[in-house]
């Protein structure tokens, strides 16, 4: 059995918080004596992207001294740029720009919901992250009138204070699924697959399935939990429809979101999901985040989100149903520029996951699943370790996310003004406003 660490003393908390928070500041601001850590970052999340997220989370502004727009992956979002209008044709800096997003486009009698920003928080289960991290995200979602998803790990009681902003996820293991949490949610998300491990199901390693996590999931402490793929009751669109009908009997007003990965036939899957009754088709691309996934799956299975969005958007247009459904993109959406590009490619909005964690201090060291210590994230994010989870306090986390979202929203509005658009909806599918950066520009 894994060791339960003692809760940190107030003095230790004080010291650690001071050092961590000061450290994020020291590394993100240009006026300090320190360069970015040499070992920080990778091709997708460069050192500058990570540090700029820290800067935004502290200031609510985009940094001038760091590239906060693109990574160095050599493809996808990193090869796309916007065709800004000449300065005199752009909207004035103080012009109103509407970035709200209506989620229910079916015109049915279900819950109507407009969120204030065209993105919300992706599923991260209790167990993969701590309650503190979940609450930080939920409190921020409430403040921004947007949403966040529980992931598949149950609904910690603290979340109920933000329940109007919490999506309850139902996934293949049905971990922690309760009538109460379904009834509390404005949206129920059926997770068919996850971009980082498409077709492979979920896996919470034993070391992270502690007493509280196991209790929430109805399992035995410190035993690995598999959320097997696929839904064993679903072999067709009709079966899927039964799922949605089942939810309807429990919560007749909830909107339905269907989270799928990006296979070859993602367009057909999306259309099938719509006809089964989905209000939101959530596409999760192959480069998405995860608490634990086989390395072979991350790069090789399913397509990146940038390539899936236009495919689905165009097919739904052809089918004449595009305006009746909301397409949400995730899985490698890192920045405000990525959000805008995803929308220009055909999505209505996006889901952020890793970005939230980076804003709260993640360095993407890839030890979320436990790492050699077995305790999980040393930053206190992807862990339920009694000591480590205290490194992230709810108020601090929510404040970081609030400021981070402020910077993202500001940048998103700036992009729209530069394109002469006053509404985020006008950007949808406007690939004519994008240019491809050939070569090494």
């Amino acid at each position, binding site marked *: 059995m894994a060791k339960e660490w003692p809760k940190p*003393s107030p003095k230790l908390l004080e010291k650690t918080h001071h050092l961590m928070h000061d450290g994020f500041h020291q590394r993100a601001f240009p006026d300090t004596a320190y360069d970015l850590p040499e070992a920080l970052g990778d091709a997708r999340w460069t050192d500058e992207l990570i540090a700029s997220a820290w800067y935004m989370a502290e200031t609510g502004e985009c940094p001038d001294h760091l590239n906060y727009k693109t990574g160095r992956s050599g493809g996808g979002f990193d090869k796309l740029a916007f065709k800004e209008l000449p300065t005199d044709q752009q909207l004035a800096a103080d012009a109103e720009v509407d970035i709200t997003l209506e989620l229910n486009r079916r015109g049915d009698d279900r819950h109507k919901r407009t969120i204030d920003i065209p993105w919300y928080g992706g599923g991260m289960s209790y167990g993969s992250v701590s309650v503190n991290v979940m609450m930080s995200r939920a409190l921020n979602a409430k403040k921004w009138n947007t949403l966040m998803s529980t992931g598949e790990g149950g609904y910690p009681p603290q979340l109920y204070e933000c329940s109007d902003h919490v999506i309850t996820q139902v996934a293949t293991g049905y971990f922690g699924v309760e009538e109460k949490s379904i009834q509390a949610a404005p949206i129920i998300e059926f997770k068919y697959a996850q971009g980082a491990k498409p077709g492979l199901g979920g896996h919470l390693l034993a070391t992270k399935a502690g007493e509280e996590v196991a209790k929430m999931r109805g399992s035995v402490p410190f035993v690995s939990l598999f959320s097997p793929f696929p839904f064993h009751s679903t072999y067709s669109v009709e079966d899927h429809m039964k799922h949605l009908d089942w939810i309807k009997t429990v919560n007749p007003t909830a909107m339905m979101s269907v989270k799928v990965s990006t296979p*070859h036939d993602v367009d057909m899957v999306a259309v099938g999901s719509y006809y089964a009754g989905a209000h939101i088709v959530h596409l999760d691309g192959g480069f998405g985040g995860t608490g*634990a996934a086989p390395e*072979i799956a991350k790069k090789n299975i399913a397509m990146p989100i940038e390539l899936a969005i236009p495919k689905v958007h165009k097919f739904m247009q052809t089918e004449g149903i595009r305006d009746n459904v909301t397409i949400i993109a995730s899985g490698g959406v890192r920045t405000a520029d990525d959000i805008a590009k995803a929308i220009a490619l055909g999505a209505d909005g996006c889901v952020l996951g890793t970005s939230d964690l980076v804003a709260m201090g993640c360095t993407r060291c890839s030890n979320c699943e436990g790492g050699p210590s077995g305790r999980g994230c040393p930053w206190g994010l992807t862990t339920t370790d009694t000591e480590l989870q205290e490194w992230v306090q709810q108020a601090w986390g929510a404040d970081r996310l609030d400021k981070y979202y402020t910077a993202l929203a500001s940048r998103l509005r700036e992009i729209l003004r530069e394109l002469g658009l006053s509404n985020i909806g006008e950007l949808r599918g406007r690939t004519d406003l994008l240019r*491809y950066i050939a070569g090494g520009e």
Partner: protein
Amino acid sequence: MLATDLNRTSDDMMDGSVTIQLPVAEQARLNRERADTYHRYHIDAAETENRQKFPRRFNVKVGKIGLAKLLFTEFFKYFGHWDVVFSRPCTYGVFSGPVGGFSPRPDLCVGCLRCEVQHPEFVKVTHNPDLAAIGDSYLTSKHISTIDEEARKGTVPVRGQGYRGRFGGPGFDQMFTDMSEIVRPSRDGIHGRELIGTSVDLGSKPMSLKFDSNGGLLDAPKMMSIQVPFIYAPPPDSVSTGIIPEILAEAAGTVDTLVFLPENTVTNQGLASPNVVPMIAPGQIGNIESHGNGTRMVEMTSWNLDAWNQVKEHPLLVSVQLPLEGDWMSTMMEMVDNDVSIIHLISDHHGEADDGRFIMDLYQEAHFSLIEKGCRDEVTLIGTGGIAGADHLPKSIITGMDAVGLDHPLLIAMQARLLGDTKTRGAAGVKLPSKFDQEWAVQRILNLSCSWRDQLLEILGAMGVREVRRLRGEIGRAMWCGHLEAEAFGDIEGFPGGEH
């Protein structure tokens, strides 16, 4: 079954042409016996520690004066709060040695950077240049690190966070494999309830069976099965005799695959077995008669019609090597016309033909040429060269190979260092660890084989493919980055070859 059925024969119960003349009761008994003795195939992996130190990922430098100042300050600031005084910014033990940060233990560092972020004034974590220096432009340090982990643990590498690398890339990186959103019970196979088959057949699959008037099978197909779709290719010339062939032979026998070894090695070291394939030059093909002890297959090291005609009807399976050089396609067709049933395509260690083309294209050409000729199932294609990671295995099969040869990764699994020319087939020098023994090395290869097979199962499970034989040539389940980009970005200004 009803009692009245007991005297019926099994063919009475079928409407097909198969005539297996067994009383149903006897058939049922045999089926039960078979079920009782059935054991699901698996490879016994066991954690097997490195025998020589593998380059660590990170270096950790701590400024002694800065650390001393911090400790001095904190000692007085937090006097009495010893948990605070002795707390360290690392959960992995880098600073938990007898003298803490004064003598850090960088081997334990995972690069979370918490120490450097918290104490930028005196801690610096850097990538270890010694790690970056291993490998070559194809079999990179990342591949080697991964193979080392797989050979050590025998498991599927699992980590947190998402993908960290390039968007697409050259070679195998240009392909994404498909997944199936809702279908299939096959995923259960990975968790143990249902089988996903990884065995493949080598030899010519008959298009129909023929029976004599008594129901006996005529012209029994000349073919064999191995349990995994990979074989062990011959080691470089510098280690083609001695302990390495013995290790490969033992591992091949345990895994139930094949190892291809020079004929002299097989003979001189007494390695003949059902899992060893002696490689014989066409001029010595008459030696085929000398290989006993259960040998099932030999390989002719190059195409020669006269030599082939000598062994064409031999009861042993005979594969023929075909280097991807010159007009290899014409040679392959000539081989097919002369009833060669196993063709072993050989590229260099970077997966390139002599004209620089990559194997994924060439494998497809070979595969589709045989389909065009209407004889794909009568020929087995094995591809050797350019396999550097577990994902290369299913991708080679998708592009048309029945089985794939593993070469340098086997040596990496044994912690060998490759020296000199690592691109030309067979040319690399090999430096083995100083502490090296057969038992340890065999287990490392078993671990690698287990890990790669399990990763193959992950890919198959995600695709909903229940046996690897069905994956062969499933180009429709491959997604090519270039094609997808053209489809997604073709109407965007500046996209190469796009509408603009």
